[in-house]
């Protein structure tokens, strides 16, 4: 199916709701914030699927209260697995032309996401990747910046795509590109894997400058730098 086969939604006005894209939100133990994140996001993206990755708190109920369709993993598998489940849901159960991967902790901006969908539509792009380093200074420590830059350089080298931020969770993916994804990295290494698989589609793409809100909450939940070692081992050995 090509994007033009999707529902014939008129291009929404810049500030109107985006009805031709589903937000895919992997969710694991984010009960304190997820209801607000989803309720806020739904003002721009009314269609939201949250994949509850076996949370042990009230995350699923909170996400439902926020207005998302909630798909529940019967056990915890990891963020990569949740993302793939969300992508499969959009492909199997809807005919939406686009999907947007979005984090549950509220660090992404819905307006950035809407602008990225608009760019994908206007420029006929199969995927648009968020980058926190394209525009202006970003509040990232030097060590984290170094690790992220190294990851981006490695991803650029292996895929031939020139990337500035390989580990940004905000991505717009068109249906035909999403159909070619098969994420096998269940945990955090999926970020590198998704880039590699998208690159393999040979479809047109670009990066898009986005802002990341580093709140105390997202900082506390965010990945520690130690995790980059785990990601490396996962990528090499499985």
């Amino acid at each position, binding site marked *: 199916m090509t994007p033009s086969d999707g529902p014939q939604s008129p291009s929404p006005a810049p500030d109107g709701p985006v009805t031709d894209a589903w937000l895919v939100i992997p969710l694991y133990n984010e009960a304190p914030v997820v209801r607000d994140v989803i309720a806020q996001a739904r003002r721009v993206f009314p269609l939201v699927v949250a994949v509850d990755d076996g949370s042990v708190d009230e995350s699923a109920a909170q996400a439902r209260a926020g207005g998302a369709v909630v798909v529940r993993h019967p056990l915890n598998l990891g963020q990569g697995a949740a993302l793939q489940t969300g992508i499969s849901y959009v492909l199997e159960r809807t005919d939406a032309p686009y999907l947007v991967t979005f984090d549950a902790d509220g660090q992404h901006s819905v307006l950035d996401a809407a602008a990225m969908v608009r760019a994908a539509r206007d420029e006929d792009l199969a995927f648009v990747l968020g980058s926190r380093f394209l525009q202006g200074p970003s509040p990232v420590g030097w060590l984290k910046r170094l690790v992220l830059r190294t990851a981006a350089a490695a991803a650029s080298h292996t895929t031939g795509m020139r990337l500035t931020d390989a580990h940004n969770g905000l991505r717009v993916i068109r249906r035909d590109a999403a159909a070619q994804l098969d994420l096998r990295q*269940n945990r955090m290494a999926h970020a590198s894997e998704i880039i590699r698989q998208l690159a393999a589609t040979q479809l047109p793409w670009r990066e898009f400058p986005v802002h990341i809100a580093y709140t105390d909450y997202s900082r506390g939940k965010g990945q520690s730098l130690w995790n980059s070692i785990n990601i490396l081992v996962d990528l090499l*050995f499985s």
Partner: protein
Amino acid sequence: MSSQIIIQVLLIAAVAVVGWTMLRSPGGARHQAGRRLLTLAFVVFAVAAIVAPSLLTRLAHLVGVGRGTDLLLYALVVAFLFQILSSFRRNAARERQITRLARRVALDDAPSPPSP
């Protein structure tokens, strides 16, 4: 003294093989057959070591190791690495199966999207 190089080469080669196969995707029947042959060789080696300890020591001297027990220890270390490798592999394969199963269950139980 200089014959020590033989055991060093053998051990480094064995460890390198473990490392290299870790990086490669698991092969099918050939991979499994290879593992079984290795296990068999190890059993023969162990029996020989028990029946004729002096044989083991002679073999050890041949490759530049002082004592037969040392050679046995080296072989054990390599065998242990192979064991780690194969259980790592099995775990990864099992995890993929569980993931597919859990995803199917989750998607089959998922609510329908809101009708426009």
